[in-house]
């Protein structure tokens, strides 16, 4: 009773107040919107500046070779980003290689093959995958995927493929379970929903007339997919993949659980490694203010920022250019 009364009063108040405030509120509103926009720019700028400034002493100490040096020794305070940059790119590339065909399949199935009633549940399931918190992927990876890979995947692969020259280098080392491959697989699942969603969007934007004409001249489903849908959205699809790559680069918690965290360089898919994000997560709590270690970690953060920025900029560019 009381609430409705005050509600009507408020509504009346608003009605009478509308006219005069319109002239004043509009510039205020526009001003606020400007503020919001500028805020993001300033925030981003400050973060970049902070990372660069904080990491500068490390860059001065180790020189430009910090970028590729593979030493990471907290005892002697010799730091280099080589292993982490390599691990970050390597694990993200594995993720994209695994996620790409899966996303293609799901997206094409959803847009072309799936019967109406099935389309929604599968679409929702893919989207829900994006809602799974990173730490859950990490725990699941650690407790379920790692033992499975260590027992069933790695021993036969090491035995069969290990001795082959060149390719064999990818399959060396003890079957730990945790390592680059496992990290890549978990990352693939994490980027799958984003890449799939964008693929669906691209495939849906293919004009029906083009596809119908192809079907009309007797093309099979695969031929339509191969020769009409994919070429039509190729550039946007590459952009979508880059976006997935960008997400995979910065993923932290899930990767830290399954990558094996070794600051050693190895070409093997099974060897434990480290990414920039996992190293920062691992080392940050014990890095004291003013220490070279903290500066090296901040510099690592800056490098990750730059890599992600380049990848995302590329993806934006490609997604926008259609056809």
């Amino acid at each position, binding site marked *: 009773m009381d609430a409705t009364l005050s509600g009507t009063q408020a509504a009346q108040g608003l009605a009478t107040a509308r006219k005069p405030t319109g002239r004043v509120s509009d510039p205020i509103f526009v001003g606020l919107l400007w503020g919001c926009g500028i805020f993001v720019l300033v925030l981003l700028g400050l973060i970049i500046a902070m990372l660069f400034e904080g990491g500068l002493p490390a860059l001065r100490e180790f020189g430009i070779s910090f970028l590729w040096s593979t*030493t990471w020794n*907290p005892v002697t305070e010799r730091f280099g980003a080589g292993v982490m940059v390599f691990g970050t790119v390597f694990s993200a590339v594995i993720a994209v290689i695994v996620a790409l065909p899966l996303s293609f399949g799901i997206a094409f199935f959803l847009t072309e093959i799936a019967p109406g009633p099935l389309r929604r549940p599968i679409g929702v399931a893919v989207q829900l995958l994006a809602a799974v918190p990173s730490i859950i992927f990490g725990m699941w990876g650690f407790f379920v995927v790692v033992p499975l890979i260590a027992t069933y995947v790695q021993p036969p692969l090491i035995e069969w493929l290990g001795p082959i020259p060149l390719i064999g280098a990818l399959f060396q080392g003890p079957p*730990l*379970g*945790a*390592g680059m491959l496992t990290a890549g697989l978990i990352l693939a699942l994490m980027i799958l929903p984003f890449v799939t969603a964008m693929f669906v969007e691209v495939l849906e934007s293919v004009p029906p007339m083009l596809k119908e004409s192809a079907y009309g001249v007797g093309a099979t489903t695969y031929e339509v997919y191969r020769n009409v849908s994919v070429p039509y959205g190729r550039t946007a699809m590459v952009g979508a993949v880059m976006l997935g790559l960008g997400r995979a680069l910065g993923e932290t918690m899930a990767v830290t659980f399954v990558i094996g965290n070794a600051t*050693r360089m190895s070409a093997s898919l099974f060897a434990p490694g480290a990414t920039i994000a996992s190293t920062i997560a*691992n080392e940050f709590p014990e890095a004291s203010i003013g220490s070279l270690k903290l500066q090296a970690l901040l510099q690592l953060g800056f490098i990750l920022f730059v890599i992600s920025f380049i990848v995302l900029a590329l993806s934006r560019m490609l997604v926008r250019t259609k056809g």
Partner: protein
Amino acid sequence: MKFAHILGAAALSFGAAFSGAAFAADINGAGASFPAPVYQAWAAAYKEKTGTGLNYQSIGSGGGQNQIVNRTVDFGASDAPMADDKLEKANLLQFPTVIGSVVAIVNLGEDVPLTLSGPILAEIYQGKITKWNDAKIAELNKGAKLPDLAIVPVYRSDSSGTSFVFTSYLASASADWKSNVGAATSVQWPTGAGAKGNEGVAGTVKNTKGAVGYVEFIYAAANKLATTDLVNKAGKVVKPTVHNFMAAAGAADWAHAKNFAASMVDTAGEEAWPIVSATYILLPKNPTNAAQSAEVIKFFDWAYGPEGDAVAEKLHYIALPNTVVEEVKKAWASEVKADGKAVWTN
């Protein structure tokens, strides 16, 4: 209008609640994660008894040191003792609270009682001993059926006090380790895989046949993990028991340790477990708020008492030797001063 009234009243009562809480002057501390369970248990018991609360944030030793140097908390906590020059520069008093130990855990597929030694562990973690049936391990375990299995060394990936204590032990037991790897909260491990936290190491060892790892004793005890015996400096085989941890604490050279940083790693005692260490509190010697600093000292004074010991014991931590506690109390009384006056007297 009415709404504003309600809002005002709410704000008033909220403010009152807040100032009431502030009046009780809770203590704020941050740092090491290893003693966090006992600090939190102490805090709960102490609050019940005195009404004074303690907020302890387990953010890692490095974070604890940073925060107390910047004076954003009332006390910091660190597993590894802080360097003497850093303590002096930041004007901090360092004192130990409880003692913990680190144990080695293994997974040989079957239940084989195993004895290892410092030099052997150092060689395993350097990748020099790679099989469980290595002659050096066999020599320590005569009669045991050792499998022909690759050894997978597992270490803490996050930098931690546990790694500091463990690598200190390896450095003490092996000159090679000392010069090539060293001792720190995180090191450049020559081989093996890293897992996050005690639970990560324990999980990886459990999942990987042939794995060896190290965890805090409290964690191994709570989860009933298979631990190994170790050969100590006196050449005796010792089991990871509270009795042997206390023997290590007793054998440490407290009298000559500056800032209470007595090393309990690889001590000479016959029964001493070799991987034992104290965890420390860092307290400003020149507190800006004398009353708050006194509250911190009162809290730890209570924790050193029988009630605090009982809580610590239940969680498998080991209390400090009495002689050390007396020295700490003397330091509190003589070194923590506000405006030239001691904030606490025994």
